[in-house]
Each structure stands twice: as C-alpha cells, then as structure tokens.
C-alpha cells in the first residue's frame, strides 16, 4: 500500500470516469420523483438524496465504491457455449445476449473481482440486473464458481451482491443446473472456512434466491429490495388474494427471520469491512491515512511510466 495506489490512481480513475458526460444530467427518483443531479446521485451510490430510495447501480460502479481507492482486478471466468440449446423464441438467444452486452458493456450478468476493502483482501462478485434481468445461465454459474475458487486459492472471504429474476430460461435445464452447481461453489468456501457474505439487492428472486443467494454465512439486504422465490403476481393468482404491503421486501424478510440485516448502500462498505475483519479475527480497520511512506518504500515502487521507459 502506498500513496500511488491510494491517492494517484483513484484520482486518475475519477478523472477518466467523470469525463464521460452522461446524456442526461438529471435523473428522476423512481420513488419520490425528485430530480437528482447525476453527479450528486452517483456520489450517493444511486441512492436518492431525498427519500433514500435505492436505485439500480452497475456492478462496476458498486465495486469502485466498495474497494479502497476504487481499485480492483477482474477475476477471469471461463466462457460457456454461447447458445447451448439453440434457443429461439421471438428473438434468437444470441441476439438477446448481444443487445444486453451492448447495453451494459459487460460480457454477462456477473462481474467477479478481487481487491482490498478497508485494507482487507476479498473476492467480490456483483450481479447485473440490467443484463437480461441478471438471469443465471452457465456464465453466471462460471463466474460464481471461479470467484469461489479464487477466494479459496487466496484464502479470502467472498462477498456476493445478488440481483436477478432467476434462472435464464434460454439456457433451460442448464440454467437450472446452476443451482446445484453454485451450491457446490458455496460449499468450497465453507470447507475452506472462509466467510461467504451475501448482499441481496433489488430484485433477487427465483432460482437465484433458492441457491447461492440464500446460503451466505451472513445475509444482508439493501432497503426495500424485493427478495422472493415466487413472483408476487404468481402468488396472488394462486391464492386469489391481495398480498400485504411490503410483502417480500427486505424489511419483511428481516421480520420473518430470513435475513441478518438490512443495510443502506451508503453504509454497506463500512459494515462489510467490520464484519469481514471480525470473522477473520483481524483487528479493527485502521481509519485515516496510513503513515507517510518512508523513502526506501517509495523507491521500490515503479510507476507504469517508469517501467515503460526501461
């Protein structure tokens, strides 16, 4: 850890990310209707500054906010067969994937990375609901297995942010089989004695809830996140009655004993650091800046420019 990674790189990162001016400078809160300035909103992690409503956040933006200095490295995940069932509904499956890839700039619905949070090394994964509803196909399965394997290899905790409608229908039974498959991944972590923390974000439903997203040592949810097995409409149709207010929302699940905590996104990082460090038997996080590097340490570090010059 030194001032280059702590200070210079985040600055460079932020210059680059801020350069892309969004088309729309204002976003309307989907809950209270307040117009929110894009920078203010992203600084607040897409949580409405007025009513506290948690709007969707991309996995990358989440990771940037989570990791020290916004620095993380992607964990490589093997790529599965593109269209295992040659599935065609009104559109061909590969076309749907291409549209999602273009929209999100991601390969599939799960991003796996490694890095430090509060100077604690972890592996983390975040699911992208904007990529085909975050749906779990073989690539999402691959990402979770790769993430768990990497965590075991590095002896690090695994933190997973879930968001999905369920299994990806276009991969049929192979998507369903990611339920036991990702469960094996969770067992790898258990057997290695590593913490597995799930943060359920809006929405997490179906086969995803019924596998890795409900098997965490610690289950945290973001406020008001929909967390369910069956969809609300399906249940209403089945039982023929209206469901109570707040049904299948994070707070409702907390009340029914299905979660450990409901935590605001803006407080999530600090909480994860606290929990992870306790589970690992580490002392509390050192707040504030590390002591200035000694000269000897500074000399050891080469900036990319210097490396290139050689």
């Amino acid at each position, binding site marked *: 850890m030194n001032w280059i990674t702590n200070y210079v790189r985040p600055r460079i990162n932020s210059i680059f990310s801020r350069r892309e001016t969004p088309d729309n400078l204002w976003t309307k809160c989907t809950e209270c209707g307040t117009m929110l300035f894009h920078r203010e909103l992203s600084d607040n992690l897409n949580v409405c500054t007025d009513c506290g409503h948690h709007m969707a956040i991309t996995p990358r933006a989440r990771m940037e906010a989570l990791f020290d200095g916004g620095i993380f490295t992607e964990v490589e995940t093997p790529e599965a067969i593109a269209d295992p*069932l040659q599935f065609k509904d009104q559109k061909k499956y590969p076309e749907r994937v291409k549209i999602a890839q273009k929209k999100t700039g991601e390969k599939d619905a799960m991003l796996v990375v490694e890095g430090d949070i509060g100077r604690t090394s972890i592996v983390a994964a975040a699911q992208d609901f904007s990529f085909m509803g975050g749906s779990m196909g073989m690539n999402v399965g691959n990402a979770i297995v790769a993430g768990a394997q990497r965590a075991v290899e590095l002896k690090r905790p695994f933190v997973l942010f879930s968001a999905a409608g369920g299994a990806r*229908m276009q991969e049929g*039974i192979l998507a369903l089989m990611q339920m*036991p498959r990702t469960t094996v991944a969770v067992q790898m972590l258990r057997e290695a004695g590593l913490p597995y923390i799930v943060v359920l974000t809006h929405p997490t439903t179906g086969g995803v809830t*019924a596998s890795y997203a409900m098997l965490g040592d610690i289950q945290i949810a973001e406020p008001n996140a929909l967390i369910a097995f069956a969809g609300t409409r399906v249940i209403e149709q089945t039982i023929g009655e209206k469901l109570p207010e707040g049904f299948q929302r994070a707070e409702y699940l907390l009340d029914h004993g299905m979660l450990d905590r409901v935590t605001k996104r803006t407080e999530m990082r600090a909480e994860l650091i606290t929990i992870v460090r306790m589970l690992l038997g580490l002392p509390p996080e050192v707040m504030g800046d590390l002591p200035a590097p000694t000269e000897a340490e500074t000399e050891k570090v080469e900036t990319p420019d210097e490396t290139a010059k050689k």
Partner: protein
Amino acid sequence: MNNYLDFERPLAEIEGKAEELRALARRSEEMDVEDEASALDKKAAEMLVDLYKELTPWRKCQVARHPERPHCQDYINALFTDYTPLAGDRNFADDHAVMGGLARFNGRPVMVIGHEKGNDTKSRIERNFGMARPEGYRKATRLMEMADKFGLPVVTLVDTPGAYPGKGAEERGQSEAIARATEKCLQIGVPLVSVIIGEGGSGGAVAFATANSVAMLEHSIYSVISPEGCASILWKDAEKMREAAIALRLTAQDLTELGVADRIVNEPLGGAHRDRETAITAVGKEIEAMLVALENLSPKALITDRRQKYLDLGNKGLAA
C-alpha cells in the same frame, strides 16, 4: 382407460366404438360383432403405436402430468417393503406434498423421499398437487441427514409442478428451504439416486434430484420453468406452450444428451399410465442398478462424484 389426453382423441373414438359394439353384443345374444370389434382394436393398437412413436415435447408434458400416471405412493407401495413414513420438519408442520421415510428396497434399508400429487380431488388437495412448502424441503433435508448418519442410501422420486407459490411459503423461507435441501443433497456421504417419474418442476425438483445418478422415465420432463410459464413470459402468450416446450429441451432424451440425466427408463407403449405395473417394475430395476453401481464408493468418493457431476455442467450444449 377413460382419461384420454387431447391428442389421443382419435384413439378414444375408435376404442369407444369397439366398446359400444361389445356392449351392444352383450345385450342381444344373436349378434356377433367380434370381427368388427377386433378390427377396431387392431386399428386402435396401430394408432397408439403411431401416436407414441414420436411424442412432441408438449405431448410428453401432457403424458408426464397424466392424472393416472403412477405416483410416488404407487412406487413406494409396489417397490419398497417396511415403509415407515416419517413426518415433520421439527419446526412448523408436516408437508403432505412430500412423503418420505425408512423402507427396504430389495431387502436393504434405505431412505425414500418423493413428491406426491394425489390421485383424486380429496388427496390432491391434501397433497397440494405435489407442490411442496418449505416444510416439505426441510423434512427432506432432515431425512437426508438421518440417512447420512446411519449410512442409508437415499432414493428420491421426483414429481412436482414446482414449489408452492404461496404467502406462507414465502414467509417461511421457500427459497432458503430449497437451497438448504439442495445443499444437503451435495453433502451426504451415502448414495443418492433420483428418478424423475413425472414432472421435474424447476427448483422444487432440484432440491431432490441433485443426485449421483438421475434416471428419467421416457415421457417425464425436467425443466427450468413450465412451458406455459415460459410462453407467457417470452412469447407473451401462454398458448404458445407447444413452441416453448420444444425450445426448453425438457424431455428425457434431451436431458440425457445434455448430461443432466444419466439414464432413461422406457415406458410401456402408450405411457406409464396404460400399464402401471410394467412401468413401476422398470423403475424398480433402474433404482437397483443405480444403487448397485454406487455400492462400493466411499462416502468421500460419493460426495466428490456428485459435486463433480454438477461442476461439469458449466459448458454443455446440444450438438450443433
């Protein structure tokens, strides 16, 4: 046989005619209709062969859901002895959609667990049409754990439209219950063999069918979503279930090609419901074969084998 599926209607007509003729002949003794009737029988038999020669995926769904198809209870009654049902999840209730308990299979003690759909209005309601609530999965988890403790092989019989989508089921953690049951399937150091006897409906089936060996009856299905559900989401029209059934690749034949199912158990001509005894015997033979194949594996090897099977399902696909 009087419960025909819609695609069997022409067959129903012919069989009906033959039946009518015979009924007529029974009333007036001088009439001899046997020639005509047996001609109709022959035609019906040919038609049955024809109808079942290549069932479309949707027709297979219909056969898999046939109300007279043998259910879990029938298999347990016929294939197991000393069946001792064990009830309850020790938390909340006993779920009648899931039956299970100790039994002997060909003499050896085992734990048998399965979904039961019921076979008349009363029992269907009692069994909740085979749709389990969290208590059902937790009961299964408890029984698997017990089997592990006492070294008993586990046999699961899968036949469910899916886990029950209800208010209480959600409140009591349907998804967690399914996840834990699946996890337990992957943890036990005893042989775990599974037969999909009818419908393998999504997560509700996975919770039981995460096994060392999975056999499927010839006309059973196993799918991530029902064809109707898939059609209403992707086609925005539940009536497109025929297309959805094709696209989903949910037949036993597709699933063996994809490596999800290991074996297919042939059904008698016209489906298991036309000759229940034959179907049940065939399933019994298959269970025996699967158990024997796993007999000499150590607990550790059994767990590794099961996990590897599912880890390998990360890059499969149909041949182009």
